[in-house]
């Protein structure tokens, strides 16, 4: 950020993959250091704040669980925005962004599910309950996995991106319906009130580490996403060069 050339003059500048790779290369060390720093502060805060009088030490799981859950949802939102970019503006980086966000989003979703489970065992006495929130998250996880499977199954990157974008957007439209239906289903089968996590106001004592951790996780997400996008662009270039080499050999 010392160099003026880093400034993005317009949106189209970012669209150029070469420029993007250069920019990502400069940004990544800074972003990564910031992530480490935030995690250092956040984790220190997590372990130095007092334990909750009801939840005991297990409240510390929340500092990881809640940001992971937020980021899992943000990951899908990033994917949906990229999908829109692919379909509407045919932005060359949008399909790379969507493809790379899927595994990261799936990772955060898995983290949220696992930490939720770990928290649930001492608090609820069971690893898993079919609570509305857990269930919707589980379905979100399945959607992430389906998209990853689709991306892996297609060899032509451009076509895969457009097709996946359709699915991402339909999934995005469907998320409120799924949430609504799961809430309905849950109230029908069991009372939901007992297992509500939120509701009560969070004490400032707990809010500070939570916010720092949320920031740290967000930085982590963007670091990983940027690195994954850069790798994906390189991978596509190598694939293009290989194809060119094959054709050169064939015509010689």
């Amino acid at each position, binding site marked *: 950020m010392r160099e003026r050339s880093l400034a993005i003059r317009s949106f189209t500048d970012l669209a150029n993959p070469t420029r993007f790779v250069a920019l990502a290369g400069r940004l990544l060390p800074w972003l990564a250091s910031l992530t480490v720093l935030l995690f250092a502060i956040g984790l220190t805060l997590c372990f130095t704040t007092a334990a909750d009088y009801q939840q005991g030490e297990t409240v510390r799981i929340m500092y990881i669980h809640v940001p992971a859950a937020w980021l899992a949802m943000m990951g899908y939102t990033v994917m949906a925005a990229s999908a829109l970019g692919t379909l509407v503006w045919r932005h060359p980086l949008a399909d790379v962004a969507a493809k790379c966000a899927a595994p990261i989003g799936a990772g955060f979703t898995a983290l949220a599910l696992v930490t939720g489970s770990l928290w649930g065992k001492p608090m609820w006495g069971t690893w898993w309950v079919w609570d509305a929130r857990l269930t919707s998250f589980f379905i979100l996880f399945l959607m992430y996995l389906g998209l990853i499977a689709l991306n892996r199954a297609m060899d032509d990157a451009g076509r895969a991106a457009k097709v996946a974008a359709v699915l991402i957007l*339909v999934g995005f439209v469907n998320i409120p319906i799924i949430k609504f239906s799961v809430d309905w289903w849950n109230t029908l089968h069991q009372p939901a009130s007992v297992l509500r996590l939120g509701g009560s106001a969070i004490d400032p004592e707990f809010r500070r580490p939570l916010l720092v951790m949320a920031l740290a996780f967000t930085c982590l997400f963007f670091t990983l996403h940027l690195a994954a996008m850069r790798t994906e662009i390189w991978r596509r270039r190598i694939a293009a060069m290989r194809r060119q080499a094959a054709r050169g050999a064939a015509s010689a």
Partner: protein
Amino acid sequence: MMALYLRDLKLATRAGGGALTGILFFLAVVAVVPFGLGPDLKLLARVGPAMLWIGALLASLLGLDRLFQAEREDGALDVMLMQETPLVLVVFVKCLAHWTASGLPLVLISPLLGLFLNMEPAAILATMLTLLAGTPAITLIGAMGAAVAVALPRGGLLVSILVLPLVVPVLIFGVSAAYAAVEDPAPFLPPFLILIAISLFFAVIGPAAAAVALRASSE
């Protein structure tokens, strides 16, 4: 468009068509349930609507992957993409034909399977009604999955993986409406109307999304 509808119906019912396979699969799934749960008639009556719904869901997903793949393999999809008729309409008509050939028979045979599961007449009727309202939604959502996976040689399993999370709401409202008809306090109408709303919603979204995906994968 009538020509397309009739052609797809003919194809589904001729040798090699998927209509009969779907019904047999439905039969097999429901027939296996008592072996898993035990022959307790009370228990079977209680899980009956849910089993019929899950069986119908799996059976309607069965032949969906071929919906566009067969057209693509013999080149017919290319010709359809070039016509004056909007692709959305073509997709919708194909869905309609697919549902008539493989969804409707499931609805019609469900009362018979309901008897096997010792369900009350009211429960049988309610399940049949909810299946009638809900299976079109499964076909329409599935058409989108089929269009997305059209270019894949082994798309069949992938279609199910992609579509299942999206049909969860259909299953939830279908089953709750079916149960509401039997269990007293719960009202039948609200979930049933929501189910119809979902079907109508996907009658719009499904073909549109499938058309975009088909165009993208012809390139």
